[in-house]
């Protein structure tokens, strides 16, 4: 066995390891806010990444188009059968919209939890090691993105913004393991049933809707939307569909499994929903204990909605 480490090297290695452990613990403590050098590096890498991602998206787009072309016949048949249904629905929706506007005008209510300003963004990267479910978008604070905004695709909610730099922003997906990640949701039944999306079941690949009042009825196939009551997300973004209802561990409330409406792989274009009515600092962590009257440095930890 040859001498693997000389004394000098061993000391260097030990110092290095200590330094790294210190760095890791330092950066683990405050992951929500990027320091200035971090921001600069993130923006630079993000710029390079967006250059690479454009041709990549173009190529995957071609493959998707070919795929879509092959399915055209079946899809067309299916869609035709639903077209008439849709026309009736469209009329009904228009009617309701007009009526809603009129009624709002009568009671002079301008604020609407549903309203939001959409900001289009392109996904430039996904955390390649996938231990955390994260996306990186090509829009940042310069485009008006703030922490805690809802992120959706045309299909449904996918996550929320957790960190921003001037030209990029980071999205934590709904499928995260983070136990502090909550979204207040409503089951669109005849009667509205409120609950919280808390956690993701990796085995079933479904979200878990917790804290549903056990006296209210939720059944398989019900649609789940954001309720807007968390104070951050706009109301009425589709989350998914109930697939199974059980009682929770303590038997006090109901628990439902929700199959997400959005497809979490192959995300490319997303919409960031900036809600128009007042946002509240919706973090339940340290910041709720802060003194809000004397403006101290409140940092949004971004936990929960």
């Amino acid at each position: 066995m040859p001498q693997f480490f000389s004394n000098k090297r061993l000391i260097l290695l030990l110092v290095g390891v200590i330094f790294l452990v210190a760095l890791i613990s330092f950066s683990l403590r405050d992951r929500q806010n990027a320091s200035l050098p971090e921001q600069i590096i993130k923006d630079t890498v993000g710029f390079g990444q967006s250059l690479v991602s454009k041709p990549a998206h173009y190529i995957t787009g071609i493959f998707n188009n070919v795929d879509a072309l092959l399915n055209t016949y079946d899809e067309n048949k299916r869609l035709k059968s639903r077209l008439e249904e849709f026309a009736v629905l469209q009329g009904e929706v228009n009617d309701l919209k007009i009526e809603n506007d009129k009624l709002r005008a009568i009671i002079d209510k301008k604020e609407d939890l549903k309203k939001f300003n959409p900001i289009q963004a392109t996904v430039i990267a996904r955390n390649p090691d996938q231990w955390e479910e994260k996306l990186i978008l090509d829009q940042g604070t310069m485009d008006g993105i703030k922490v805690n905004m809802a992120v959706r695709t045309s299909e449904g909610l996918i996550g929320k913004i957790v960190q921003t730099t001037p030209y990029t922003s980071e999205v934590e997906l709904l499928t995260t393991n983070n136990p502090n990640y909550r979204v207040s949701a409503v089951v669109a039944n005849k009667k509205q049933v409120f609950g919280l999306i808390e956690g993701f079941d990796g085995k079933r690949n479904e979200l878990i809707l917790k804290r549903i009042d056990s006296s209210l009825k939720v059944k398989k196939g019900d649609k789940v939307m954001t309720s807007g009551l968390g104070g951050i997300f706009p109301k009425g973004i589709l989350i998914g569909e109930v697939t199974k209802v059980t009682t929770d561990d303590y038997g006090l409330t109901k628990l439902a499994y929700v199959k997400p409406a959005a497809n979490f792989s192959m995300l490319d274009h997303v919409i960031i929903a900036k809600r128009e009515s007042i946002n509240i600092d919706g973090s339940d962590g340290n910041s709720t204990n802060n003194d809000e009257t004397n403006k101290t440095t409140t940092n949004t930890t971004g936990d929960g909605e």
Partner: protein
Amino acid sequence: MMARFLIPLVAVVLFFLETEFALFSPIEWNGELVYLVPRFLILYLIFLSIYYNRKRAMLYGLIFGLLYDIFYIDIIGLYSFLYPFICFIAGSTVKYIHQHLFVTTTLSLLLVALLEIILHQFFLIISFTTIPFSEFLNQRLIPTMIANSIFLIMLGWTFRYLIQARVLQKANQSIL
């Protein structure tokens, strides 16, 4: 002249390509989600460390590890330690193994498996994940190894060709 700039350029391209390929994952396979983690860059660095220069490979590992940490993970010091560490092990084996392409490929894949296992243990410790080892093995490690081995079988010889071109060039320069 080309090989000199090509070596870092390939590393940069692989760094960016990793995340583009990550967008395809997770894939549904037999009703289960499997995660494919692209590890192109570290495979390339392992090759660099075996065929070219251990120190240079470790330096690249440190730089790209740091970028990786800041851009994706937000935990500085994780990849910037692991990448050079893996390169160090790879470079140290040169004396003991035969540098046949097949042997290097197998070794690189083993080292990537080691990297994945260390990462899993680390994230388990800081409770970013709760999945036990058996699930990790089926959901992540095996599919990741299969995907990366396909990548390496396709491109491993190109890496070696490129690196050897650079080594040859350097040798010529020293003669002149």
